[in-house]
């Protein structure tokens, strides 16, 4: 492992080296991710925080449009969530893991081209376990899994989930808004989905006022739906918040 870390340190500042080593870096990353999310209480041990951060920076530069993380997160989610007679339940004791997996999957999905085979494969695997008419009420990951469901299932029943009771803590709110904004800005066709706009209305109506990053993301979603060109600012500045 130390050899790998050393090599990662060496190539982190060299773009050409990163491109040349795309495949091994990706493989290592996926292995680390899988170990991390599927292992439950056991965490993947990094040599140091610096190495971990450096690795994430590397990943930022090579991972684009890689569906593999989403597939891993989907595996985790399907492991933690069960559906019986149309009603979804979480495996006892693993509620927080299911929630983490659903958040990670929601974050990973927008980076995949929705017309790609990989995306279709993810959708197929998802629908094999979770039916179109699944009811997610009562789950800890209710909002995240509904958002995933809305993203993956095209012809889902016209039964919209409600944001009425959605009172997340600021960090979760920021993540959710950021994820949805990213999904909107990377969409290839069509308008902004209604459930995303309902999220915007709910978030902007919150009292007390939501965090500034949430307001920015919500406004960027509105701007995108109005047809504004947000490519030059997009959700810039989100990074590092």
């Amino acid at each position, binding site marked *: 492992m130390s050899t790998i870390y050393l090599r990662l340190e060496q190539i982190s500042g060299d773009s050409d080296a990163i491109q040349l080593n795309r495949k091994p870096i990706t493989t290592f990353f996926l292995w680390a991710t899988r170990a991390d999310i599927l292992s439950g209480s056991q965490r993947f041990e990094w040599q140091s925080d610096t190495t971990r951060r450096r690795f994430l920076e590397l990943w930022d530069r090579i991972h684009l449009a890689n569906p593999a993380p989403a597939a891993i997160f989907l595996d985790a989610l399907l492991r933690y969530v069960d559906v019986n007679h149309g009603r979804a339940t979480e495996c006892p004791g693993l509620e927080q893991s299911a929630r983490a997996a659903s*958040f990670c999957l929601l974050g990973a999905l927008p980076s995949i081209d929705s017309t790609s085979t990989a995306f279709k494969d993810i959708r197929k695997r998802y629908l094999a376990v979770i039916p179109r008419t699944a009811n997610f009420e009562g789950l800890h990951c209710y909002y995240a899994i509904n958002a995933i469901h809305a993203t993956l299932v095209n012809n889902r029943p016209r039964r919209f989930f409600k944001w009425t009771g959605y009172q997340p803590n600021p*960090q979760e709110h920021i993540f959710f808004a950021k994820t949805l904004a990213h999904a909107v800005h990377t969409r290839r066709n069509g308008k902004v989905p209604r459930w995303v706009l309902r999220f915007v209305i709910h978030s902007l109506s919150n009292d007390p006022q939501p965090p500034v990053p949430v307001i920015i993301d919500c406004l960027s979603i*509105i701007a995108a739906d109005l047809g*504004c060109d947000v490519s030059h600012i997009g959700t810039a500045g989100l990074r590092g918040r």
Partner: protein
Amino acid sequence: MRCFTYRNCGFAWEVSRSLITADLSHSESRVQPEELLALISKELEELVRAADLDRISSKFKAITALFPYAARQERNGKNETLDLFLRAVRASKKRRFMWKRIIPPARTLLNEENHVSLKRAAILVSPHLQWRFSTNGNLIQLFAAAASAIPYTDEVGMSVVDTLLQIVSDDSVRSFVPVEMWSWLNKRPSLPPVCRGRRLASHRDVLQIVQAIGDVETLKSFLLLVWSEWNEWNELNEWNELNEWNEPDEWYRQSRWDRRDQRYQYSISNFSSLWDFTGIEMWRHREDLLQRLSHVLGRLDLGLWHLRLHNPDVSLGDIQRRKEQYGALQEVLLKVDMRATETLIREPLRSTIVFCLLIPADRHKAPLDVYVCNSPPVSIVACPGYTLCPFP
């Protein structure tokens, strides 16, 4: 529900986070809400300027989603966003423009105890809400309370009256309107050319409801508001008409335009039974109503070009129909006025004292020909060549 904690996410969480922000890694700038708002404002300005109704209508959900933020800005003393929002909404000229999902936030704003500005924002957008979805009446009660709690301006009066007329024209929610709300009609704000409330309220059912209140002043205010060059009298329920004067098969055989023409003819022929301004003591109200009708007919005489400056949707057929309707209505009122005069002249004088105030006819203000006061019974009749004017 337990709070989400990131301890359980670990590296996977960071991966997810990095996935989201990856495409932005080239940018270090931090965008501010004001920059995005400027972009949105620019786009909305263009939409309003282009007056592209289809495009505005297709964006109604996004425009609606901006409202909570505009209201929040209003609370902070920045009213530009709300003004722009209202201009975009009004430019749509669409019925029920705002998305029904905005009703819960609007309810919250109407219920704000400490922020008059938020109530004002909710009142100003109220004509564009879908009131049919306020099924328990709570929203209407809040609306009534909020309307009376904010300072009166023409804009506020216009919004409240427009909304009130919309609510009372919908039989599923009109029962929730508090009686005191009707007094808003007496403020008689000037309604805009495209006014959904006025158009929906121009029918027999609403008139009957206003008549049932039993206040002549309110009834007159209602008629002065709904009689306009911008809309005509409509029958609310086509099916009622169908039962009254046509066979179903025949009805379906007719073209839409034939049906429409017949509907208006039907309306005109029934005008006389719709109004109750026949009493001699109603002369003052008849005068106001006749003045209003003269004004409306005068505006219609200005022609299509003039009306289209304010509402491009007006057609020549609309003008023709409205002229017929309001002309017929004027005739009805004049006949009523004439009958009242005849009744008075034929009636033996019951007066104990007769006052005659004679002035030259060139100072006469129509249609004051006869003035009668019932208590005490006093009649005043003009001599030939002279006319009457009201007492100072």
